[in-house]
């Protein structure tokens, strides 16, 4: 079952290279995504797998579910996006620097990389072995680098190079952390280490504390680089703003979560070994620093895709803070991951629509979306409220849960900083986003609105709203289970 989930997109990637007909290949990708989602839903209660290697626990299934939903939305969006890009295909002038002429990467390779990306993400979610988890997360980096470089111009090339190098170095440090973890299990007697999560949890009480602490620090820095925690986030705004919108949505909504999964696995071991307080304290402060850095850059941001990217840094900080606080905060962090992915995926896809209409990423040049395109304008406003955590949306509930965890734990300073930073980000995002939606229409380029550019966005917005009003029972149970695995209550 799990092997099938991993193999399906990998084979589809192979098929994507072989299929010559563009519309057929695009439909094949949507079909694969749909099948993947159905299999994921069917696997929700599946507890089999390959012992010590592959299996789905509550944390894994939640991240797999998010990935699958987001991927389906992105592929439906891609139907229209890729068709429109094809029409413009012959090398065309760059709209930011009209002197530069660029072409796109061949569509077959782009599709294949997208599908490989899904396959590696699935592997990361299902990995029950620290070695395999590392291999999977590094593989997601390698699959996404070509995706960022879809538009072959020098800005996306710079972003892709930065992404590849910074992430690879980060992931290399995570490998060192993984090895430290193995060393911690080799004491006192020189036993063999299997690297499997279950074996580590079983051996937790006799792990060597010094190596375990070292392991967690390197896992946090290594996977934290990939997750976009400040101060290791340098690659993130560039990669998110230069890649096509579907790729930004998947990077933000699916890939950052998978890196977070690596840190969460490390925390599981630390908590079982009695090193929980040490690990949690680190997470809390990395979380607060990420939120602060993101708030500072959002307040001064004039590029809406970069603004959304920094917002991802902020939300990753909230996730780290949530599991760092523990208790109800662990549950809150998992719920936050779900809601953030929905809202951010929706906003990045929408940013793609806005970019297609206005042909600029500047927040000042885009005005009057509501008049130019009422549907996109309304969704943009809904997105603002969803991402800022306003009441009827899911992020409100998870943010309040994390706040309550901070207050209940007696962390008044942390709670106060958290509230101040949330407010700063809200102001920083609301004023440009409201200005973009309202006002007199700016300079626009006629662009037809295909249903494929609206339906996935609206669906993600709907889910984000639904999870704010009502959480389906099985999802709630799984989230609670995941919170317990992370040492919550």
């Amino acid at each position: 079952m799990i092997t099938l989930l991993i193999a399906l997109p990998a084979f589809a990637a192979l098929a994507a290279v072989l299929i010559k007909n563009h519309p057929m290949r695009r439909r094949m990708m949507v079909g694969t995504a749909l099948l993947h989602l159905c299999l994921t839903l069917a696997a929700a209660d599946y507890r089999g797998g390959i012992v010590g290697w592959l299996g789905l626990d509550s944390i894994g299934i939640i991240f797999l579910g998010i990935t699958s939903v987001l991927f389906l939305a992105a592929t439906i969006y891609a139907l229209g996006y890729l068709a429109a890009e094809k029409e413009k295909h012959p090398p065309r002038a760059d709209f930011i620097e009209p002197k530069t002429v660029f072409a796109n990467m061949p569509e077959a390779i782009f599709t294949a990389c997208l599908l490989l990306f899904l396959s590696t993400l699935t592997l990361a979610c299902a990995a029950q072995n620290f070695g395999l988890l590392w291999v999977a997360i590094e593989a997601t980096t390698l699959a996404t680098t070509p995706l960022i470089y879809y538009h072959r111009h020098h800005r996306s090339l710079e972003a892709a190079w930065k992404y590849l190098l910074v992430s690879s170095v980060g992931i290399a440090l995570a490998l060192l952390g993984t090895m430290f973890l193995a060393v911690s299990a080799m004491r006192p007697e020189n036993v063999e280490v299997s690297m499997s999560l279950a074996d580590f949890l079983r051996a937790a009480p006799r792990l060597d504390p010094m190596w375990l602490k070292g392991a967690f620090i390197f896992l946090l820095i290594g996977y934290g680089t990939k997750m976009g925690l400040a101060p290791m986030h340098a690659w993130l705004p560039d990669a998110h703003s230069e890649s096509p919108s579907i790729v930004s949505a998947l990077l933000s909504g699916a890939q950052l979560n998978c890196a977070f999964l690596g840190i969460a696995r490390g925390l599981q071991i630390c908590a079982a070994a009695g090193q929980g307080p040490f690990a949690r304290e680190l997470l809390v402060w990395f979380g607060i620093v990420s939120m602060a850095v993101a708030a500072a850059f959002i307040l001064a941001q004039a590029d809406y895709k970069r603004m959304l990217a920094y917002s991802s840094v902020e939300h990753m900080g909230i996730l780290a803070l949530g599991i760092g606080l523990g208790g109800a905060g662990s549950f809150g962090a998992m719920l936050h991951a779900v809601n953030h992915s929905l809202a951010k995926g929706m906003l990045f896809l929408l940013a793609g629509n806005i970019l297609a209409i206005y042909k600029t990423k500047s927040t000042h040049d885009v005005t009057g979306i509501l008049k130019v395109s009422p549907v996109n304008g309304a969704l943009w406003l809904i997105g603002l409220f969803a991402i800022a955590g306003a009441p009827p949306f899911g992020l409100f509930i998870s943010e309040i849960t994390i706040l309550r965890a901070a207050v209940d734990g007696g962390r008044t300073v942390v709670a106060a900083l958290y509230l101040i930073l949330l407010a700063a980000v809200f102001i920083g995002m609301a004023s440009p986003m409201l200005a973009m939606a309202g006002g007199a229409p700016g300079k626009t380029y006629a662009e037809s609105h295909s249903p494929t550019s609206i339906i996935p966005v609206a669906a993600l917005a709907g889910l984000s709203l639904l999870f704010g009003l009502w959480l389906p029972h099985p999802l709630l149970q799984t989230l609670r289970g995941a919170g317990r695995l992370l040492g919550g209550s």
Partner: protein
Amino acid sequence: MAGVIDFVMFLLVVTNLALLESSRLKTCIWLVAFQGISLSFLPVMVGYNHTGVIGLHAVFVGLISIILKGVIFPLLLMLAVRRANVRREIEPFVSYNVSIIAGVAALAAAIWLSRYLNIPASAKGSLAVPLAFFTIFVGLLIITSRKKAITQVVGYLVLENGIFTFGFAVMPHAPFVVELGILLDLLVAVFVMGIMILHISATFDHIDVSRISTLGDE
């Protein structure tokens, strides 16, 4: 076999220091290839010290490692050098003299630090752990202080070599699948980096990473 391990460790120090002061890209590529080949003997040697037999699995990992690090990576990088038409690193952010001094200081610090670590029995008595840390430091220094994309890839390979030294010196029994997965990821990483370098040289007429910096916030 302990003598062979010590010799490999000696080569590791020499290649690291040589890498820190070489400006010719070709020299750097061959140095890191040589370093990779000599480290490929570690799994077999450490495994032999540990169990008394030469494991088939260790031989296999060593062979794959030699083919990748000694043949495929240098060829790929040489191709990139030829196509990009660059010969040497020009004025790194940290000068060669300062790099060497920093390298020697890091070596001393790593050896001093390792006295305070609980090193597992499998690596006790050998210098593998401190030298692995030293190699990791050298890799990071090369990545951050050099301007050419190819030198950065060389630095990344040195970093990986350091992590490998640590891994094989302390755990002779890492799961086989994981080892192969790591090598495969490394192969694809270098391959993708090589392609990117070709694109960088075609787009910018140079591969000087310090000069591609249009992105960023003020």
